């Protein structure tokens, strides 16, 4: 795990991604310090362009876009990360059990995984959300987590199947370790890189899905999040009126967190799957190979 972190920090892309993510998280954490005042207070005229006083301009209701942007990051990031973690836990558990148990359990779980995988997610989310009326962040989290675990489950299952017949697993079973121990103590640590990829991918998906649902008006309109900001901006025809700052601020926030996560995931992918490596890592590897060949006495 430590060596994984070290490789991660050697990659420029991953470092750039981590910086973006950490900066946004710090902004959310210190919202009361960097943007004092209530995000839904009316502080100016309608749709004022950015000025020194309102650096990101104001909304149609005369609310400060900067304050909303900073405070909105709290719910958006919290829900995104928490949902991503929930998706990963469900997917990993189902994949682990299916891959390890085999037989009928596997057949049933695999069937369920593939079936949920082919059902279009967003229409299903809209069905659930529209019957539930407006839904708070917790309900959005539950709805997304329940419909989007299959990707991770599939990956985890095939990896578990590859591992389950290795000697160390057989040995653990022979000395009579209970199944839960084999699963969580023996197998799970070997799946960590995969779980990392799954987690980052799930957070990306959760941010996208949450934004989409809130933009469509299923969010709680009283909560300030990047998604409801987009919804309110859309409803006040901000784009047609030329109030680009009203849409631009939350859009930039979502695009930034997506960018940061994507950069980290790209590097994760390269670590877990060295074949895909490009750029400095690959050149380093080629150079290493050449040196190794030379040290073998130049016998090529």
């Amino acid at each position: 795990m430590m060596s994984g972190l070290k490789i991660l920090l050697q990659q420029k892309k991953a470092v750039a991604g981590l910086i973006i993510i950490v900066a946004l998280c710090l902004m959310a954490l210190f919202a009361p310090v960097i943007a004092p005042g209530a995000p839904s207070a009316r502080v100016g005229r309608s749709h004022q362009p950015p000025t020194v006083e309102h650096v990101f301009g104001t909304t149609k209701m005369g609310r400060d876009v900067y304050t909303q942007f900073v405070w909105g990051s709290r719910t958006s990031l919290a829900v995104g990360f928490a949902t991503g973690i929930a998706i990963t836990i469900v997917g990993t558990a189902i994949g682990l059990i299916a891959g390890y148990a085999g037989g009928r359990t596997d057949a049933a779980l695999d069937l369920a995984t593939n079936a949920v995988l082919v059902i279009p997610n967003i229409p299903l989310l809209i069905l659930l959300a529209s019957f539930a009326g407006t839904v708070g962040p917790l309900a959005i989290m539950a709805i997304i987590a329940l419909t989007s675990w299959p990707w991770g489950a599939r990956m985890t299952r095939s990896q578990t199947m590859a591992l389950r017949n290795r000697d160390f697993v057989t040995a653990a079973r022979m000395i009579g370790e209970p199944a839960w121990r084999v699963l969580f103590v023996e197998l799970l640590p070997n799946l960590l890189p995969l779980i990392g990829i799954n987690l980052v991918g799930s957070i990306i998906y959760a941010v996208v899905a949450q934004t989409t649902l809130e933009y469509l008006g299923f969010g709680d309109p009283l909560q300030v999040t990047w998604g409801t900001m987009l919804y309110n901006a859309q409803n006040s025809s901000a784009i047609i009126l030329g109030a680009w700052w009203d849409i631009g601020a939350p859009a930039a926030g979502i695009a930034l967190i997506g960018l940061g996560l994507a950069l980290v995931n790209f590097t994760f992918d390269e670590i877990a799957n060295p074949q895909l490596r490009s750029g400095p890592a690959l050149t380093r590897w080629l150079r290493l190979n050449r040196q190794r060949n030379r040290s073998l006495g130049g016998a090529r």
Partner: protein
Amino acid sequence: MYISPRRLGVYAVALAFAIVMNFTVPRLMPGSPVDAMIAQLGPRATPAAIEAIKARFGAVEAPITAQFLDYLKGLATLDLGVSVKYYPQTVTEVLARSTLWTLFLVVTAITFSLVVGTLLGAIAAWRRGGRFDTVVSPFSVVMIAVPPVIIALSALFVFGVSLRWFPVGYAYDPSLDPGINFTFAGSVFYHAILPVLTLSPYLIGEFQTTMRSSMISVLGEDYVTMGRAKGLTAATVMLGYGARNAMLPVLTNLALMLGAVFGGSIVTEIVFNYPGLGLTLFTASVARDYPVIQGQLLLMTLATLGANLLVDIIYGVIDPRLRDASA
């Protein structure tokens, strides 16, 4: 032609799941959707309409199994109920109006992205570690992570509102009469450009990433070395030997991504006010037009399953190993 019974089982379970969700969700929700819908109908709430809605959403005195059987009978006869918003139109009529537009949008975007994405992926794999690869490949991953909402809104603002290069709504110029002529086709094409370009970045990113990794492993195969040794041109080896065989995982991925494509088209249609299924779903969800929302889920599930089946068949045709397995 060969499709494994296992795959068919998956499709059957997926369809059953969608149907059961449609049946149970309205019955489980707190509050009564029936009252909300009758209120929505307002003066149009004839006794017949109220009766139809009650039967459909479980506000009747009948055992749950009988209700479910009734529901299935309705589905089998393509009776999806009546729309609350567009009453007395039926759900089937409402959906039929918009399906073609979504199909046009989605198929165009997929075709365009498939060509661009696989080509970018193939070149990136061919020159792995080169400048092209180090720029294009991370960019593709980022494209997958940016929600369609953001791309749609930015495109609308920049190219629609500010530069006025493209129209900001509708599928064709409303002053034109629909017909098969160049002016109308041109208008349809012109109105589709921004929505298609909005749907594409995600797809191109996915296709590029899958194609690149699949192509990298194919390029390691002996027959590729053999092609090079024969002195074939780089283009022949790359496209005829490499890309052709690397396409299979891309096709699998395409089938799995269709659900996400529909999700993207929903958002795109809403932003560009494009009269497809997505916009219909949106107006339905704003009006709490539950029958239309349910019909939508069913239709999109069926479309995804159909497309998956199609990919399964194509897969069997182009992969000789599967053909042999069925013999």
